[in-house]
């Protein structure tokens, strides 16, 4: 069923190290099972897109990767998820530390109702990553620059982050999550609340960020998956149907359901 371990024709991708690895991950909400035995490798410095119809479990899987499901009382996760070969679900691993290494950008831009500066500085502050104001200033500037927002907000860092446009807010959220210098960034439909121009900016940005970070993106839009990702996984009814190189998934999928989905027969 799971078609992991495809022959990778692109040597650049094949060479990429496996950053995170999911083994037989199953998620239950109370009695209902939302995910069935997902096996997925996430490669370093690669954009992995997770696609599939609504309610197929792709967001649920994404939230397992930095244990955001812990906050939901009735949620139970089985199986193993490894980050650099270390199981992230061992009780000894601190979620605070995990989430500093695996950052997250959410569907709806959710800047804190604080200044732009404070939004970006929050992560470094709570993790005590900087010593002194000038160092923090520098982190804020580089993060905003990497998120492609610096030029637009350099003169109004003390204005509230909620006053920015939707696309700017989302880039602020990206800047906020890269300020803690994570290894992996999880993006849960980061463009679904944005207009096409803002979406294009974010997509460009994702491509740039790939050089420094490993990115997993959940998206509704198959075009977006095709544009930004190198690897794509297709989820359906709580199962990972197929995973492979993006061009292969979109041109020559192995599974009939993938074929039906990408040609628009359902979803």
């Amino acid at each position, binding site marked *: 069923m799971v078609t992991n371990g495809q022959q990778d024709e692109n040597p650049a991708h094949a060479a990429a190290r496996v950053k995170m690895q999911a083994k037989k991950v199953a998620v239950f909400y109370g009695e209902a099972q939302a995910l069935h035995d997902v096996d997925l490798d996430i490669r370093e410095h690669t954009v992995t897109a997770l696609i599939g119809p609504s309610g197929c479990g792709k967001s649920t899987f994404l939230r397992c990767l930095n244990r955001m499901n812990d906050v939901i009382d009735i949620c139970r996760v089985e199986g193993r998820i490894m980050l650099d070969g270390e199981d992230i679900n061992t009780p000894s691993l601190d979620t605070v530390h995990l989430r500093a290494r695996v950052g997250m950008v959410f569907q709806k831009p959710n800047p804190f109702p604080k200044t732009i500066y404070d939004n970006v500085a*929050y992560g470094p502050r709570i993790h005590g990553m900087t010593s002194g104001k000038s160092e923090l200033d520098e982190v804020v500037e580089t993060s905003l620059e990497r998120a492609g927002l610096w030029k637009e907000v350099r003169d109004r860092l003390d204005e509230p982050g909620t006053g920015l446009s939707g696309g700017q807010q989302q880039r602020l959220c990206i800047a906020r999550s890269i300020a803690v210098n994570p290894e992996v960034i999880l993006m849960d439909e980061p463009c679904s609340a944005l207009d096409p121009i803002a979406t294009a900016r974010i997509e460009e940005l994702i491509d740039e960020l790939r050089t420094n970070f490993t990115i997993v993106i959940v998206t509704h839009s198959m075009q977006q998956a095709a544009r930004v990702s190198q690897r794509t996984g297709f989820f359906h009814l709580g199962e990972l149907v197929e995973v492979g190189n993006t061009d292969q998934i979109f041109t020559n999928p192995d599974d009939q359901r993938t074929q039906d989905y990408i040609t628009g027969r359902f979803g």
Partner: protein
Amino acid sequence: MSGEPDYAARLRRRHRSEMRFRFYGLLSIALAGVILVVLIGSIVLKGYSAFWQTHVRLDFAISAEQVDIDNLRETNWGGLVKATLRDMAPGVTGRRDKRKLYQFVSPNAGYDLRDAIAADPGLLGTEFSLWVKASDDIDMLTKGHLDRTLPESDRRVSDLELGWYDRFVGEGRIELRFNLDFFTTADSREPEEAGIQGALMGSFLTLLVTLALSFPVGVMAAVYLEEFAPKNRWTDIIEANINNLAAVPSIVFGLLGLAVVISLFGVPRSAPLAGGIVLALMTLPTIIIASRAALKAVPPSIREAATGLGASPHQVVMHHVLPLAMPGILTGTIIGLAQALGESAPLLMIGMVAFIVDTPTGFTDPATVLPVQIYIWADSPERAFVEKTSAAIMVLLAFLACMNATAVWLRRKFERRW
């Protein structure tokens, strides 16, 4: 088949019922408005005169020998006032008539004279006049609350006193003046001397205790229940009981205060400390419920954002959720305190209904509070306390209006869009 006319008739009926519905709504609002206007109007009409007080001008000519300037307490100030009154109304001989004459002014007129001399000893040896408060009966006469046409035996003011009064009015000795003392003195048996400062101070101290106890406890309880507590049977029971507590009649809290706070812990009776503890118990459920609602209103996306950055649950709450919920929490707290400010029943149980002539200065001094002061005055037989009662109600209402306005202002000012 239902034809066109049938449909049109049904449509008209629907419109008519809509009109009726709106009319009932308007009627209810109009009724509520009229009741409010009548209530406030009657209180203001009855009470506004309490802010003015009839004063009588007394002319003194006191020589330095009559007064020991180094020991003002020893002088018989009352006697000096009486002598002046005798001069003003010559020909009063009988003991009874003299007593009536002396009762024309407030028994505290002697203290006013002492204070005047103490403030300016240069007055000694000169002729000077001093405005002192008239007694409550004369005050009522001036304000038109006594009917002069009644037969003498049914009147509180005799013909003789009326004669003096009319003469003094003719001489320009009677004047209505603003009664600042109403705000600067505590309760008194003499209506003309009674003020609300004692009750105001008592209310203030009591509310301070209430706030200091109920705010931190209430907010911490709400934060724990909302953010940290597991959702199980125990928390359900706690939640149900907090809601029950909010519905417990306040007198029950008074009994609890009497049994536990005073009898068991030995907090002094009638003290703002005891009252504050009791009112804090009463206010707690209000604050907890309002705080939980405010915490719940903080969008989950903010929590997710902070959690996703690696903030610990404690940091998520302290850095983001609590600050964002604070306006709502403060609004709930102010409304809870306003409730406490207007509460009298539980305080009656713990002895804050005592007659106290000194303004309390500490948390363990005997004190009373505004609503209880209103109750005490409303219970007093003197006619002059009627206006005092209404005036005290006005002061209480003014404070409540201010507190509620603050709550509204806070809500407006910190209202956020996410």
